[in-house]
């Protein structure tokens, strides 16, 4: 059934208020159940054995001793996962990443797994598994991996996106090009051209909750999976395909989720846990250690990017190009492509070209991390934009305003923009009191913009009205950061009832139709849309019941302020019927009252942000302190402003960590050297100031309430904003993220030399 998704610019009474989240009490009392908090009778402990080598042939695995250890109930290797992928390369990559098949592709790659009666026995069993490796040459650096001399990760990979198709293997899995116009002609018109190369290191989403699941799979092929995930429906489909199960027979329940940021959109150990359970015929609980999370889940790409931008003296950009090399770990990805698409999305450019190269290395399979691939491209582009403004002698914000994309601009990745918020965020930055703060010695200010697509996707929602008039809303997107509150507000708004009357439940895979993974900032956008339609369907039923009670045609009934009202003079004697009253009578007027909706929520509306920050750099130690940080972002419509601000602040903090500290450090042996929170240092409370936010509301024309996705864009500008601020503070252009103290000291030294 088609629905009218257009923005209607209505007034709101509930939406936009700062109510308390309904799951708050559970979460402050320790009652909320996360991935590792569930148990089943007779459960076993699952553990995974991982490769210590970056690249090695597995010539032999002897599990006999482990199998004989009392208390061990199942041992698995790659052989226990027959290929059921039917030639689907993407599925095969997932399977091979879950358990190596003859070759270990990175330090941390799973090679075997056990299930035993307790952790102690499981750990002992792992030690008894004898794996014989033949080490192979490895490569972990993105620029090294492109060189012809680099060891080839997969001999079947031919660079896609190149005509004619290559005939020899390469570590470049894909080339993708975007843009329009004639960049050579554009550069010929430029008065000033700046060209610079940048590097960013690999970071991890760093959610505090490690991956955890409780898997039960019987010999009849039916099972249950309790798991911390952003997409239980997707997990169900993937696990079912990999293990040869019927989708309907595998019930997946998403636990409360302790952070995901993209990292919990992919399966890592869940198929292994299910297979262990099938073999042992007992429930298996598998919880990753922090070390495993770092070594063997999906961090983001490390990158190497060249940017060239030319402009006229009047500040108009005439041409821009970027070449972006992103590593995707040991399996092909599309991450450079997203980098190429987003790199120049903030600007209105006549001549633009960006080319992405997805590169294979011996590192873990890269996964999405909040606005995946955009922050690195923005770091390079926004740095060059700043340099160009300085060269021309123009204010960096004015320069951006002059070139900002607007409604009707042909985006650098192709389509033409509708109403967008980049201009207004920049205007807000220009007029923000933050920009007037006086800078002291060794201090610098930086500004940067960021873009992210956002998307909607398949969504299915149920709304049931109880006989007491309380409402249960069941959604299939996961509550990653307060979306239950936002969705309850929306339902209350549509029905005209109190927010407290609505209870939101995250449905498991057997209680709702398919819901796409909660990614791409889609949670509140798409489940919000489905909630609106489900509520409107329920209102239709409420009106029919009222009409039947009054014995008048339903056309004479309207729904206003939470009650049915009879229209027209002839009905003046009929007092309104509240939702509660109609619900109380429902058993006798036709049974339960419900509204249901399934929708493909397209048109999530692109989103833009501009950030500003002030830093102070200690010239002796190279340490950077963030003095002040401000986020301005377009939210379309903020359903619950607290949680919109929370998304802005959280993304900024992650970006600050990335910009200053966080990085995967690989040794020459190809092993990850800092797989723990001690050496992989994410920002702590004392590292940060309060993070100011300003929410702009430029309605998304494709959502009834004007909502845009808000979750991801906030991580895009920080690398560049801080890069610009540090560069301004030390007087040397920073080109390598993270800008850790040694890197800053070296840059200062090199700058003076």
């Amino acid at each position, binding site marked *: 059934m088609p629905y009218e998704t257009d923005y209607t610019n209505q007034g709101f009474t509930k939406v936009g208020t*700062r109510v*308390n*989240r309904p*799951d*708050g*009490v559970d*979460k*402050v*009392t*320790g*009652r*909320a*159940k*996360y991935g*590792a*908090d569930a148990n089943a009778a007779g459960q076993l402990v699952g553990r995974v054995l991982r490769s210590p080598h970056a690249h090695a042939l597995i010539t032999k695995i002897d599990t006999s001793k482990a199998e004989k250890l009392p208390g061990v109930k199942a041992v698995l290797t790659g052989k226990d996962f027959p290929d059921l992928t039917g030639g689907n390369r993407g599925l095969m990559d997932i399977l091979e990443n879950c358990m190596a098949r003859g070759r270990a592709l990175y330090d941390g790659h799973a090679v075997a797994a056990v299930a035993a009666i307790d*952790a*102690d026995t499981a750990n002992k069993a792992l030690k008894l598994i004898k794996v014989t490796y033949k080490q192979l040459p490895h490569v972990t650096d993105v620029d090294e991996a492109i060189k012809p001399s680099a060891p080839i990760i997969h001999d079947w990979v031919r660079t896609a996106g190149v005509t004619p198709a290559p005939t020899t293997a390469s570590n470049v899995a894909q080339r993708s090009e975007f843009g329009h116009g004639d960049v050579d002609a554009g550069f010929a018109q430029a008065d000033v051209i700046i060209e610079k190369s940048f590097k960013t290191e690999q970071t991890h*989403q*760093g*959610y*505090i*909750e*490690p991956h955890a699941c409780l898997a039960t799979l019987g010999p009849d092929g039916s099972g249950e999976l309790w798991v911390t995930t952003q997409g239980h429906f997707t997990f169900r489909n993937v696990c079912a395909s990999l293990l040869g199960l019927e989708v309907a027979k595998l019930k997946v329940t998403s636990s*409360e*989720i*302790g*952070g*995901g*940021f993209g990292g919990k959109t992919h399966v890592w150990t869940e198929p292994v846990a299910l297979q262990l359970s099938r073999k042992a015929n007992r429930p298996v609980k598998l*919880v990753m*250690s*922090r070390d495993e999370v770092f070594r063997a889940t999906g961090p983001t790409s490390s990158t190497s990017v060249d940017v060239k931008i030319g402009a006229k003296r009047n500040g108009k950009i005439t041409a821009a190009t970027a070449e972006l090399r992103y590593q995707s770990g040991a399996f092909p990805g599309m991450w450079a492509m997203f980098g190429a698409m987003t790199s120049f999305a903030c600007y209105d450019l006549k001549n633009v070209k960006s080319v992405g190269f997805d590169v294979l290395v011996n590192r873990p399979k890269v996964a999405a991390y909040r606005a995946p691939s955009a922050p690195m491209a923005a770091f390079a582009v926004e740095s060059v934009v700043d340099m160009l403004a300085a060269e021309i002698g123009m204010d960096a914000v004015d320069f951006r305003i002059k070139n900002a994309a607007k409604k009707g601009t042909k985006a650098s990745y192709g389509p033409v923009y509708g109403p967008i918020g980049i201009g207004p965020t920049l205007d807000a930055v220009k007029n923000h009191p933050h920009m007037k703060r006086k800078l002291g010695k060794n201090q610098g200010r930086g500004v940067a913009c960021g873009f992210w697509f956002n998307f909607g996707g398949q969504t299915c929602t149920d709304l049931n009205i109880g006989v007491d008039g309380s409402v249960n809303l069941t959604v299939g997107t996961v509550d*990653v*950061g*307060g979306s239950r509150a936002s969705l309850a507000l929306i339902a209350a708004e549509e029905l005209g009832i109190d927010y407290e009357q609505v209870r939101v439940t995250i449905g498991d895979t057997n209680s709702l139709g398919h819901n796409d993974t909660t990614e791409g900032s889609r949670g509140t956008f798409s489940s919000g849309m489905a909630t609106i339609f489900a509520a409107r369907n329920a209102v239709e039923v409420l009106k029919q019941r009222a009409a039947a009670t009054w014995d008048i045609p339903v056309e004479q009934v309207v729904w206003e302020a939470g009650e049915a009202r009879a229209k027209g003079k002839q009905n003046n004697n009929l007092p309104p019927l509240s939702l509660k009253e109609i619900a109380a009578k429902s058993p006798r007027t036709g049974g339960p009252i419900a509204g249901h909706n399934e929708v493909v929520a397209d048109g999530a509306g692109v989103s833009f942000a501009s950030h500003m920050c002030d830093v102070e750099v200690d010239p002796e130690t190279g340490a950077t302190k963030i003095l002040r940080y401000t986020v301005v972002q377009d939210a379309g419509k903020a359903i619950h402003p*607290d*949680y919109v*601000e*929370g*998304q802005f*602040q*959280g993304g*900024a*903090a*992650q970006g600050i960590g990335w910009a200053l500290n966080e990085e995967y450090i690989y040794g020459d042996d190809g092993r990850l050297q800092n797989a*723990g*929170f*001690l050496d992989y240092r*994410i*920002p*702590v*409370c*004392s*590292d*940060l100031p*309060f*993070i100011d936010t300003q929410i702009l509301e430029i309605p998304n024309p494709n959502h009834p309430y004007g909502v845009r996705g808000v979750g991801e864009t906030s991580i895009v500008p920080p690398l560049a904003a801080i890069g610009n601020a540090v560069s301004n503070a030390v007087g040397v252009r920073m080109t390598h993220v993270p800008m850790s103290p040694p890197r800053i000291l070296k840059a200062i030294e090199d700058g003076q030399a």
Partner: protein
Amino acid sequence: MNGVTVSAKVNGDAVQYVCPADESLLDVLRNRLNLTGVKEGCGTGDCGACSITLDGRLVCACLVLGAEAEGREIGTVEGLSEGGKLHPLQEEFIEKAALQCGICTPGFLVAAKSLLERNPNPTEEEIRYALAGNLCRCTGYDKIVRAVQSAAKIMRRGKKAAR
């Protein structure tokens, strides 16, 4: 299993358990006493998700052995609310939207309570340093610090009123 028998008090209640000599108090609390409000983020003392009090002192449960708790008093997030009434910190964490995913929240609450017992009127900086052992990846700490400030204020007012 070479078990150690331990008697301790958890949130005021006497408990007894048997655990291997090398099992962490975190595992004991979560797996033997079912106090899953105590979270594990790292198991190495780096994230604070497992923050508890031991005889009133703030510690990481993952760095303490279950056997070490003999005769001692353990406080976890489950013991924060009294008589069905939330602690002001719990109230303010909800009110100020100081949690997103909530996995870090139990640790922050225990750590913040311990701070406010030592220092009822901390500055922003004191709060930030006192909570620097607790990692939160979702919030950027902004609303957490504000919630602690606001709870501290409410608790000071409460004390005054009680006097």
